[in-house]
């Protein structure tokens, strides 16, 4: 039991940190620009595919730097030539643009790389067990993922809260014209913010690609849960997203580990009732419903605390 708890905690934290790495970009973009970017998971996927391709050509470490930059460049182009023009038509237009973009990116990726999983390997330098707990190996690569996520979290927080850049970026959202009068190019600030947000998603893709599966549906697989994270954590709140990511990672992992069902708590139903939908519900284990738990959480949060855990504004 202790073994399962320790391993599940580790797994949960790891998955949570990956979620955070993904949602941090989304949160930054949302809190700075008020744009809910539906294509965010697609940038993550682009990161993984760019990472895979560059790894083939020039190796993993250069790819780790270059691929997020490329994804950031794509993001900036999207902001400059897409979002900036739709901005004046309001949030719905922006939302629809990113929504369409998500589909377009998925199609383009599957056209170029096909639909089969890529053979994207963990770099040899990190392909060894870092440590062993209860005879379960912990891959060094997962620790690497964890470290990158923590570094990004700290760096983002410091940049936004403690530096001049963060000050200008935050001011540009609430008082764009005033910031403009002070001599800052507000358009460029937005473009850079969007680029950084996309690059973060790209970075998550490059490092998650070898560990999870790199194929053209990976965006669709992770996309929905990102929204759970940022809504649950509070729209636009970076610490909120951090806590929510960890919580969701842990909840999902621990739910899988539990075999409890209503039947195991209250005893099996009277067999004379015969098979019915009720007996099915009665016997469903927590492990079986693990994947939907985050969405249940999303619904509950929206009902009881619409601003999320640490959010400041109403969604």
């Amino acid at each position, binding site marked *: *039991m202790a*073994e*399962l708890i320790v*391993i*599940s905690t580790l*797994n*949960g934290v*790891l*998955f949570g940190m990956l979620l955070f790495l993904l949602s941090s970009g989304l949160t930054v973009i949302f809190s700075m620009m008020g744009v809910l970017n539906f294509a965010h998971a697609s940038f993550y996927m682009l990161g993984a595919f760019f990472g895979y391709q560059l790894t083939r050509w020039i190796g993993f470490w250069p790819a780790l730097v270059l691929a997020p930059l490329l994804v950031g460049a794509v993001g900036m182009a999207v902001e400059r030539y897409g979002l900036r023009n739709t901005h004046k038509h309001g949030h719905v237009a922006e939302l629809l643009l990113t929504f369409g973009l998500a589909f377009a990116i998925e199609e383009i990726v*599957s056209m170029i790389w*096909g*639909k*089969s*999983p890529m*053979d994207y390997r963990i770099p040899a330098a990190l392909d060894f*067990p870092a440590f*062993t707990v*209860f*005879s*379960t*190996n*912990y*891959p060094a690569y*997962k620790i690497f993922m964890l470290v990158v996520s923590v570094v990004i979290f700290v760096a983002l927080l410091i940049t936004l809260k403690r530096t001049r850049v963060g000050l200008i970026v935050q001011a540009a959202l609430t008082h764009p014209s005033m910031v403009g009068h002070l001599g800052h190019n507000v358009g460029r600030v937005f473009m850079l913010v969007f680029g950084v947000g996309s690059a973060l998603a790209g970075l998550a893709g490059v490092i998650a690609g070898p*560990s*999870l*599966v790199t*194929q*053209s*549906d*990976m965006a*669709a*697989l*992770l996309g929905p849960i990102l929204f759970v994270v940022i809504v649950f954590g509070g729209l636009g709140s970076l610490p909120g997203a951090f806590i929510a990511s960890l919580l969701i990672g842990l909840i*999902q*992992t621990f739910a*899988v*580990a539990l075999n409890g069902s209503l039947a195991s708590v209250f005893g099996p139903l009277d067999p004379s009732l015969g098979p019915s939908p009720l007996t099915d519900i009665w016997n469903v284990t927590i*492990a*079986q419903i693990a*994947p939907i738990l985050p969405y249940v959480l999303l619904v509950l949060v929206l009902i009881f605390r619409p601003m999320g855990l640490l959010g400041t504004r109403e969604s």
Partner: protein
Amino acid sequence: MRYLPFAMAAAVLMLGGAASAQETLKIGYIDPLSGGGASVGEGGLKTFQYLADELNAKGGILGHKIEIVPLDNKTNPQESLVQAQKAVDAGIHYITQGNGSSVGAALEDFVTKNNSRNPGKEVLYFNYAAVDPSMTNEKCSYWHFRWDASSDIKMEALTNYMKDQPSIKKVYLINQDYSFGQSVRSEARKMLAAKRSDVQIVGDELHPLLKITDFSPYIAKIKASGADSVVTGNWGQDIALLLKAAADAGLKVNWYTYYAGGAGGPTAIKQTGLDHQVFQISEGIPNSGNKAAMDFEKDFRAKANMSLWYPRAVNEMRMFKAAAEKANSIDPVKVAAALEDLKFEVLDGGEGTMRKDDHQFFQPIYISSFGTLADKAKEPFDEENTGWGWHLVSKIDTAHAMVPTTCKMKRP
């Protein structure tokens, strides 16, 4: 002069006849070409296209060229029905599908209804991989033919092998949460209890189909259970990712699988270092030792750039041709009648037969293990450039691979 109209009519008839003889025979391929099942769907498509080319090079079926029409169902039953209807509207009389028994059951129902409502426009459903036993038992249909061994047949063979392995003491079951996975889990429980009452089932897990990106939590659970063997019917990315997570965690158990050889599986097994500890049950293996099959494999790998993952697709297409020639027609009703009880020499050697009672094809079944290949001359084929390949450990003849059916078929 007065014969002219007759001559013209005769000419028109002959032209018409010639035109219909050249008419292409379209086969609707309904399988996932996007989403989590895409990797297996694309592999199947390549296989069928290769087989169609092979038949066409030899004059097609009764002079008809074969064309495979890809229809993407996204592993979704609802989407499959839309695609099947599209195929019917386009005048296609043969559909083939394999991935996902939920999809298979929906299609079986579709062809049954379609054929009773539209006499003269019958559609046949050739199933090459959906192995839920109910499709040839209580839900059986005259219009459905299955070339893959049903899940029960596979489990029967697999447990027959497992019962002679004294090292197996604690078994963990992990399967996809839908009809096929559930039948694997219940049959495994039943058969293991009957054949090896001393074996303990230490876990019985169902997880969502093609939705999980990281199996580490499940691996932790398997590890905590103290299992020495895992039995799984997982396919597609679910088996590849499961093995990958096991490799990462260093889980050392024996794996008894249906589909460990699917895309990504061999690479993951190589990473686990589990040399000849992952077993797979199938109707053929690349290193079967049968010369014709190995020649086919070689040519297939050269042209399709993948290993032959569906020997049953080869059997399906070749048997389709044999049945059409026996019936001397490509009319689905006649082909269906000709397929019943048709005996056929399968790709990997040995005779198979399409049982009339339930339209299940019975053929020799192989259990193979994945690992280093000692003799490169005898076992030349590795998988996914890992250097490891499939090694035959047990062959079950057709006669011993038979299971009873409860099918009460409604015949037209």
